[in-house]
Each structure stands twice: as structure tokens, then as C-alpha cells.
């Protein structure tokens, strides 16, 4: 998508709190941002709330961005972090030990992203978080366990639960 302002100009303008630059940043990144938030939220309204909170952070912390070329990646990471924090706040569930093979994203190939996201939104926040971190963001089991402050086994169980629930929904 061609932008009338370059990334560097946008970042510089946002630093000065210029409204036009802020609008340009938003227009360029919002569809992708909402896509991320839709994965971490339970529905579209919650996703837009998350996106609002995340964009506040984007505009208030724009000074921390050193390299203007990394603008999209930086906005993406803020969206993910906001989503992770949101899912973390959900209550911890009791996890039963269950040693089935780990779910992988390959299972879901026939489905479109829209369908998958709709299925993800049916999950509980913690399962949704585990699935996002492992199957979408590409973290390893250990890294997911570290992020979610639980054991490897817990993560595997959550992923299986998530996969089963999503399969049921998509049938």
C-alpha cells in the first residue's frame, strides 16, 4: 500500500504529536493491528478495545522507536504484548495431566484466517493465549511456558484442549 508520507516522516511527525502523521500511522497499520487483536480477544468489540489501548501506547511511546523502517514490526509487537497482557489477566484454570501429541498449525490448513480467528475467539483466554503464542507467533513450548508462567506439560495440555475445541467449532 503506497503511503503519501514515508515511514520516517510519519515517525517524526508522531514524535511532534502532529495529527496528520498520527492519522497516517493509524491508517497504515490499523487493519493489521485489528487482525492481531482479534486473535487475542473474545470478540470484535473486545478486540477494538484492545486495539485502542495498544494505540495509546504506540503514540505515547513513539519516542522509543529508533529505526523508522521497523515501524510496522514495532506496532505489531505492541499489539501482541497488549493481547498477551489481556489474556494473562484471565483466571488461571486447573489443568489435568494429559500427554497427547502436541497440536500444530498444520492441522488447520484448509481453513481461512477468518474462520480460525472465529474459532480462536471461542476459546478461554488462557487457551487462546497458548495457541497464539505457539501456533501463530511461533514460540517454542519452553518459551510459551516461560511467558505463561506454567510448565511445559501445562502448555501441551492447553494446546490440545485448544485444538480440540477449535476443531469442534470448525466442523
Amino acid at each position, binding site marked *: 500500500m503506497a503511503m503519501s508520507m514515508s515511514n520516517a516522516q510519519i515517525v517524526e511527525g508522531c514524535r511532534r504529536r502532529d495529527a496528520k502523521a498520527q492519522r497516517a500511522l493509524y491508517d497504515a497499520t490499523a487493519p493489521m493491528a485489528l*487482525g492481531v487483536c482479534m486473535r487475542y480477544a473474545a470478540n470484535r468489540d473486545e478486540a477494538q478495545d484492545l486495539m*485502542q489501548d495498544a494505540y*495509546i501506547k504506540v503514540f505515547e511511546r513513539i519516542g522509543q522507536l529508533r529505526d523508522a523502517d521497523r515501524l510496522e514490526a514495532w506496532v505489531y509487537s505492541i499489539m501482541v504484548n497488549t493481547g498477551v497482557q489481556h489474556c494473562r489477566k484471565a483466571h488461571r484454570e486447573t489443568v489435568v495431566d494429559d500427554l497427547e501429541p502436541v497440536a500444530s498449525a498444520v492441522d488447520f490448513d484448509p481453513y481461512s*484466517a477468518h474462520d480460525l*480467528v472465529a474459532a480462536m475467539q471461542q476459546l478461554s483466554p488462557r487457551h487462546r493465549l497458548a495457541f497464539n503464542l505457539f501456533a501463530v507467533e511461533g514460540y517454542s513450548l519452553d518459551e510459551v511456558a516461560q511467558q505463561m508462567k506454567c510448565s511445559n506439560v501445562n502448555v501441551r495440555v492447553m494446546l490440545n484442549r485448544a485444538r480440540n475445541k477449535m476443531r469442534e467449532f470448525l466442523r
Partner: protein
Amino acid sequence: MDWKQYTEQPDEGLFDEIQHRLHVRRLWRVGGWVASVAVLATVGIVALGIVSTQDSRQQAEPTAEAVLPAAGTVAPDVVDQPAVKQQVAVVPSEAKKVVAVAEPVVAATVADSVVEAPRMLSAVEPKQSERVAEAVAAAPAAVATPSTSTVQPGTPREPRATEQAVAAKIGQPAVDSSYRFSILKAPNVIVPGDDADEVRRFKVTPLESISDFSIMIFNRRGQRVYSSKDQAFAWDGTHEGQPLPQGAYVWVASFRDASGMPHTERGTVTVLR
């Protein structure tokens, strides 16, 4: 699956909401600074008011004068009482000492709806203001006790709904009028050694004609040191002939106003020697 390609179109007006919230957050940040300056200015002015009757401690003046020009730039619609309490935490470290003085004063004015703000701010030190608050809390109990009390509030009128709500909140009888404008004018300070009679002795001046007057004065430990039922009384800072130590004392007066409605008013008076 390339998840970066997955996009959703946000609703119209979301960006405007984001801009609005950014704006409001900035206002709170700026307002916090302005409110802190206003609090410092108030403390400075009050310190001036207490100190101006004494010969020593002239150094309070330059501090207050330095702060006053800043107070002139306060935007009144941004400064907000609840914001002061929240934003006090944002003040930088060099101002924290003064804020520590301001906080009990502000907490007393904002949270305690029983005591009138201008009178509470006359406390000289933060320790004294806390003790005065205890004395004030003790004072209604002393007033209510039938055995030691010489006060007769009379038959209370039917309290209105707002008064009942306030009474429930502050735990005071509904006829307490200290959240409205005061009818009694009283000095903050008396200096028993002074030449001028108005400075030497504590008297109250009612702003309208009153009846059924009764006043009691308490020390910081809640002990009654003086009482009178005569509206034209004058207290010289003694208890049974003995001069009382320098410090803050609390007075509580009850009376009926021109229309016969009972009132209770309270304040502090500092005795300086």
C-alpha cells in the same frame, strides 16, 4: 499461513476516540503539575498567614512569593480536587518534602467533609494537623455526652435527603452545618502577650443574629479547656487561671441561626506565646 496478511477493517471513529483519549491523558499529566503547584502555593500562603504574627521566621516569605507567580497561571477548569490527591504522587523528589506537608492538609480538606477547609489549613505543622483532626473527632463525642456537656442543641429540624446522605457518609448528626458557609467568624491565632485586644483574646463574631449559643474549646488531647454559653465571651488562652501551652486548640460552637435552625461549627485556634 501468513498471519500478517490477515486484516480486519476497524469501525469508523475509532481513531477519533484514540486521539481524544490521548488528549485527555495529556491534560491529566499537565493538570497534575499545575495542581501540585497550586497545592504548594496554598501551603505557602497559609504558612505566611500563620507566621505573619510572629517576628521571627521571615524566610517563609520569599518561598511563598516565588510560588505565587506560578499559581497565577493555574487553569481553573483543569485543577480538580480528586486529581490533586492522585497526581501528588507524580511530583518530583525535590518537592516531595513540601508535598508531605501538603498531603495531610489536602487529605484533611478533601476526604474529611466534617471540618471546614480554611480553618483546618491553619494548622502549623503536619503533626499538629493530625492531632487536631483527632481532637476534632473527639470533640463531637464530648459534645454528645450528656454528663459533661453544657450544650443544648435543642430539637433538630427534619433533615433533608442530601443532608441525610451526608450524615450517613460522615457519621455526624444531620444538623451539622460545617459543609455550608459558616456563620461564625473566628480568628485562627491568638497571642495572649499582645497589646491589641483582638489579637490577645479569642472571640467569635456571628455574621447574623444567633441565639442559644454555646462554645467549648479543647486541647490536642481532646480535653476541654474552656466553655461558655455567652456569645460575647473572650478566651485568653488559660484554663482555670493557668496559661495554657502554645499550640493548636479546637473550638466547637453550637447555636441557632436567625430562623431558629440549630448549627454546629468548629475550627482551630493557635495560641502563640
